């Protein structure tokens, strides 16, 4: 038990569990219990009748939108929030072990005492990627995947109820934080069955990052979560929608359906809007603003504001002209279909002439039957009556993008295929 005095003068004793997590306090406000999520954040403080809830962005800024930071409004003068660090009443900076951390800037305000051994950016929190890395002691970030592993490890210790599982998970997280990404999906399944529902967005991001899943497969993760728990609350439904929509967004952006995007954006919950905007290439701040708008404004201004954001991002995508790799393009478009393959209208061999993003764009790709695809590839490698002794591919090489596209479309048209 450790004595603590809040900056406003109220005193209470703190109790920790075996894993070193805050468990309860006694003093001002009576006996109160802390609720810690699987990433180590304080997400609740309650007695037998009432409670306070706290939410955070990945960088630890308060997501309780009604106030700047709950440290200024906590009826029980709670000072422990993000990563269980002590948050200052006026500046909202958080003491994380060795250093002070500014969640609004997403960085520490002093250099890492471990110097470069804790990372090349001496002020960065969690390698600037807090959905994958955390740094509760301000020294060296460790992967959130370790927390997932730890939670699974804690669960395998025959812990039964969800509350205990959280503590077990955090305990496991601490002792397995340095694990490499070499676990199995089965452990994650354990987590899916027993994991807390408090922070689904963080969970899905962490889980998907752990497995290396692309955004458009996150919906499946949430679906599995949904199917393996008894919970059916609005939050799960919203997040599931968000990730399903994120997949839609990726495909729609790839297909330049900007107007449809803008329309969809206006009738979705804030979770969906935020994740969708991220999927469209928005910065976390832009996405957060979009989500905030969706959650707080109704009517015409909502539609107008979000439509503008969507259109701007859509135009940005259009200007970018595509993807840097065929893999990324296929991820956006999905499968070409049974018995079909994606065919580049202007061949991949022309990347050196026009750049990858011009070639790997939705406008330059079309699904064709496998047999026809092979024949067209052979045609491009052959000498023909118009190629002056070169192969078709060599003959095309000196031509412009538009000329090559016109030729590619003519070949497809000959097979009765139009993009």
């Amino acid at each position, binding site marked *: 038990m450790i004595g603590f005095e809040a900056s406003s003068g109220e005193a209470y004793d703190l109790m920790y569990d075996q894993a070193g997590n805050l468990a309860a306090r006694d003093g001002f406000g009576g006996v109160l219990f802390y609720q810690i999520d699987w990433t180590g954040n304080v997400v609740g403080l309650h007695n037998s009748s009432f409670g306070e809830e706290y939410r955070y962005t990945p960088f630890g800024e308060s997501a309780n939108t009604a106030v700047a930071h709950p440290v200024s409004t906590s009826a029980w003068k709670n000072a422990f929030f993000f990563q269980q660090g002590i948050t200052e009443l006026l500046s909202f900076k958080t003491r994380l072990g060795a250093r002070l951390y500014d969640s609004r800037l997403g960085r520490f305000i002093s250099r890492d005492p471990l110097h470069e051994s804790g990372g090349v950016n001496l002020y960065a929190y969690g390698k600037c990627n807090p959905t994958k890395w955390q740094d509760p002691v301000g020294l060296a970030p460790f992967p959130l995947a370790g927390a997932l592993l730890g939670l699974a490890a804690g669960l395998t210790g025959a812990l039964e109820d969800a509350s205990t599982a959280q503590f077990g998970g955090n305990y496991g997280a601490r002792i397995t934080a340095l694990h490499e990404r070499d676990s199995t999906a089965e452990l994650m399944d354990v987590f899916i069955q027993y994991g807390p529902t408090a922070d689904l967005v963080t969970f899905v991001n962490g889980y998907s990052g752990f497995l290396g899943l692309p955004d458009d497969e996150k919906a499946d993760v949430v679906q599995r979560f949904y199917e393996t728990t008894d919970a059916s609350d609005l939050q799960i439904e919203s997040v599931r929608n968000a990730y399903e929509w994120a997949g839609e967004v990726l495909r729609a952006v790839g297909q330049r359906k900007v107007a449809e995007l803008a329309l969809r954006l206006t009738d979705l919950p804030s979770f969906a809007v935020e994740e969708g905007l991220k999927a469209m290439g928005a910065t976390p701040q832009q996405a957060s603003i979009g989500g905030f708008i969706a959650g707080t404004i109704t009517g015409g201004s909502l539609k107008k504001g979000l439509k503008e954001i969507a259109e701007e991002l859509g135009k940005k995508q259009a200007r970018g002209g595509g993807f840097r790799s065929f893999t990324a393009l296929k991820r956006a478009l999905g499968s070409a279909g049974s018995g079909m393959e994606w065919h580049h209208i202007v061949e991949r061999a022309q990347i050196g002439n026009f750049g990858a993003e011009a070639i790997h764009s939705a406008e330059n790709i079309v699904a064709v039957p496998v047999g026809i695809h092979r024949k067209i590839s*052979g*045609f491009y490698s052959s000498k*023909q009556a118009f190629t002056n*002794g070169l192969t078709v591919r060599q003959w095309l090489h000196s031509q412009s993008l538009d000329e090559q596209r016109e030729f590619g479309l003519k070949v497809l048209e000959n*097979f009765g295929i139009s993009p």
Partner: protein
Amino acid sequence: MSTENARRAYELAALAHGAATDRGDYLMANEAYDNLIAALMSLRQCQDLGRRALTDMLRHDDAHVRCFAATHLLPLDESASIRLLEELASEGPFVGVTASVVLREWKAGRLKVP
């Protein structure tokens, strides 16, 4: 090489090239193309007889043979060749594409007929 032998070599090479192109076999197609150009050179050496052999092949049953013959007759009988190539341009793969691109390139002055 006699005119008849050159004509026959040209015809066989054009048939082989067309069949290989249609099935995506570019190695066979390119080998046939080289044989076709060699046969064309032999026909050119036969002068009027060679030209008459090419002209006869404008009425060949096979579209690939007609397409090559029309291409190679463009400098000698432009109107007949263009008329045939315009007909062939509406054929299926890959003769249709070849005929329409030959026409476009000829009209643009970029086609080099061997």
